[in-house]
């Protein structure tokens, strides 16, 4: 394997919290000490950062390969600077047995150019009644357990699953939107939903779900990560739980950091997400929580949907948006808007998610895997959704003016995107 020498790079090191001009050497797929190299890469002063570790990517195998395959998702990830996709089990059928997990792992290894780490369902069929074979699934490579947007409503079932997961050392990822209050809703309650006549849910549903899960964590001591916190009201509860020593971390989605409920405008279904987009006050509070480190992780929550499932009245349309390729330029809005610096942003994009999953990637330190992204943080462009690598083109950023272009992506020292 060749050794690489990146010169004239603006190194974004989220672990050290630094943004400095320097050099980086790579050998045997890992970042190494300065030495000789077969190949020099002049970064021309652009940013070199750890590759993004994206928790919660939906790849639609098995079941809906026409929406997204491991090959297309891998290409999209590489183009977006995502070097590790942590994939969701909400496929059809769901990934709830070691056998389906092995199928997914095999498909991913064969087709994806970036690392794929699969998650498995917490309960069989994501039905919320019986826990899955958490031990076997971990042996087969599951890095976390989640029923995705299905909330385990039976607290007895969830408390047992958390207790068992704790004994295996498994990480459980929860969706905290209280399902009773959320039933039938496709928007956040407030002026916009009332004006458009859309059935809506109070943002309080999120805090209620979080409060319940925190109580169960106090009881069981399990390792827990919240998939998406999207409202101001949930933040104090999260802060208290962290202060009380509960093993909890939290993520949010790039869309909730960069868009608000009014962006739905005339019933644009590409903006229909789950949970729904929130008010501007909530968005700003969540951005602030990422900047302060209260929210640990930013995810794309990449959710491919075909045109047919979006060309429907808003209430009937499918929720979710593709985001592997737009994650980085959308996140640059937080930097250009002055909300946070690049190392702080990258803490939420690479090192924090990696640490939470027990991975040694996401860093620029010697010995870490050479999963890297080279990008120009300022390069402007206008997005055309039909140029995306994803099979599905359902992005809310179609035609949007964005800044931040990926110039190259390396996975274990091998270039998977950009000109050599």
């Amino acid at each position, binding site marked *: 394997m060749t050794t690489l020498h990146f010169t004239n790079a603006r190194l974004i090191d989220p672990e050290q919290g630094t943004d400095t001009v320097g050099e980086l050497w790579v050998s045997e797929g890992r970042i190494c000490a300065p030495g000789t190299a077969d190949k020099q890469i002049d970064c021309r002063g652009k940013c070199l950062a750890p590759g993004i570790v994206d928790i919660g990517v939906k790849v639609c195998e098995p079941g809906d390969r026409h929406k997204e395959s491991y090959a297309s998702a891998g290409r999209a990830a590489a183009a977006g600077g995502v070097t590790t996709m942590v994939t969701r089990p909400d496929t059809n059928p769901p990934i709830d047995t070691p056998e389906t997990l092995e199928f997914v792992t095999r498909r991913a290894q064969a087709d994806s150019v970036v690392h794929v780490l699969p998650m498995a369902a917490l309960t069989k069929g994501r039905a919320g009644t019986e826990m899955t074979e958490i031990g076997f699934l971990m042996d087969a490579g599951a890095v976390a357990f989640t029923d995705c947007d299905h909330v385990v409503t039976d607290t007895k079932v969830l408390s047992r699953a958390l207790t068992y997961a704790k004994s295996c050392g498994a990480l459980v990822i929860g969706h905290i939107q209280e399902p009773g209050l959320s039933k039938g809703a496709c928007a956040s309650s407030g*002026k*916009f939903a009332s*004006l*458009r*006549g859309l*059935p809506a849910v109070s943002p309080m549903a999120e805090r209620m779900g979080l409060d319940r899960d925190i109580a169960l964590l106090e009881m069981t001591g399990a390792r827990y990560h919240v998939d998406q916190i999207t409202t101001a009201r949930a933040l104090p509860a999260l802060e208290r739980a962290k202060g009380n020593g509960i093993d909890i971390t939290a993520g949010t989605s790039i869309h909730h950091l960069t868009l608000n409920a009014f962006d739905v405008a005339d019933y644009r279904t590409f903006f229909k997400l789950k949970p729904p987009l929130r008010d501007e006050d909530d968005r700003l509070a969540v951005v602030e929580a990422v900047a302060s480190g209260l929210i640990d992780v930013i995810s794309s929550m990449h959710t491919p949907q075909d045109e047919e499932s979006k*060309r429907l*009245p808003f*209430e009937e349309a499918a929720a979710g948006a593709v985001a592997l390729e737009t994650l980085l330029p959308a996140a640059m809005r937080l930097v250009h808007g002055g909300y946070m610096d690049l190392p702080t942003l990258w803490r939420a994009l690479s090192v924090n998610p990696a640490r939470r999953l027990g991975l040694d990637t996401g860093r620029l330190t010697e010995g870490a895997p050479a999963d890297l992204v080279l990008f120009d943080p300022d390069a402007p462009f206008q997005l055309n959704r039909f140029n995306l690598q994803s099979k599905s083109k359902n992005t809310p950023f179609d035609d949007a003016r964005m800044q931040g272009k990926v110039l190259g992506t390396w996975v274990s020292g091998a270039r998977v995107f950009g000109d050599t």
Partner: protein
Amino acid sequence: MSFRHRHLLGIEPLAPTDISAILDRAETYVDLSRSDSKHSDLLAGMTQINMFFENSTRTQASFELAGKRLGADVMNMAMQASSIKKGETLIDTALTLNAMQPDLLVVRHPNSGAVDLLAQKVHCAVLNAGDGRHEHPTQALLDALTIRRAKGRLHRLSIAICGDIAHSRVARSNILALTKMENRVRLIGPPTLLPAGIGEFGVEVFHDMHEGLEDVDVVMMLRLQRERMDGGFIPSEREYYHRYGLDADKLSRAKSDAIVMHPGPMNRGVEIDGTLADDINRSVIQDQVEMGVAVRMAAMDLLAHNLRERRAA
């Protein structure tokens, strides 16, 4: 001619001058409809299709009559019984109908925003006859015309809208229309039937009928839409009638010449006292029905005019 719109999808995009233009034109059609010869050839040769994805008797009849009085060829399609049952999507249905070259499409649909979606896919003029909980613009316009004729003006009036605001497209369109025309709008209903964020619409909100009706010029009752309720918005019909049903006692708080309106169909004894609804000195409910035909004729007249201009250009 100030009315420049291609479709009538809601009150929201209309300017006050647009609203006045429609109402002024409608006045002429009130006269026409009261004459012996109710026929005009304005829309002769044009095709109007009424697509109702949701049950309707009065609105559909009103649109049909309006089209026929203007000389259009009118076709009614009951969409529940049709291709929607075979799994065809709304957009495919729209494209199919579009290929039949209609000039005016009148659409009612149970989902908010569905008529907007459909309007993007067709070449003709689209009239929203009610979409989900979103808008019902011709109802608001006919209400506005009724008020203007009864009160002699459509500004600086105090108007109470009472009942199930949350599930009502009639309420939304009326709030928009009446506030655009610079009236004071009060909403009265139990908090479970008021949508969130309603305070930001430039209205006053009351939970008590006696308080809310104090000195109003117009009392607009809404139908309690039981068919839309998941259950549990109100304890019972009789408690609702006791607290929010309009009767002579509650109405006595309003101005002595206040008028009573209802979009129909009425639930007598649930949201309105039967005797009151029939009181010709107070109730303008029958006038509303009459104005409905005139307003729909006016809207189709203006849209057809714009359609012809666009085609000629």
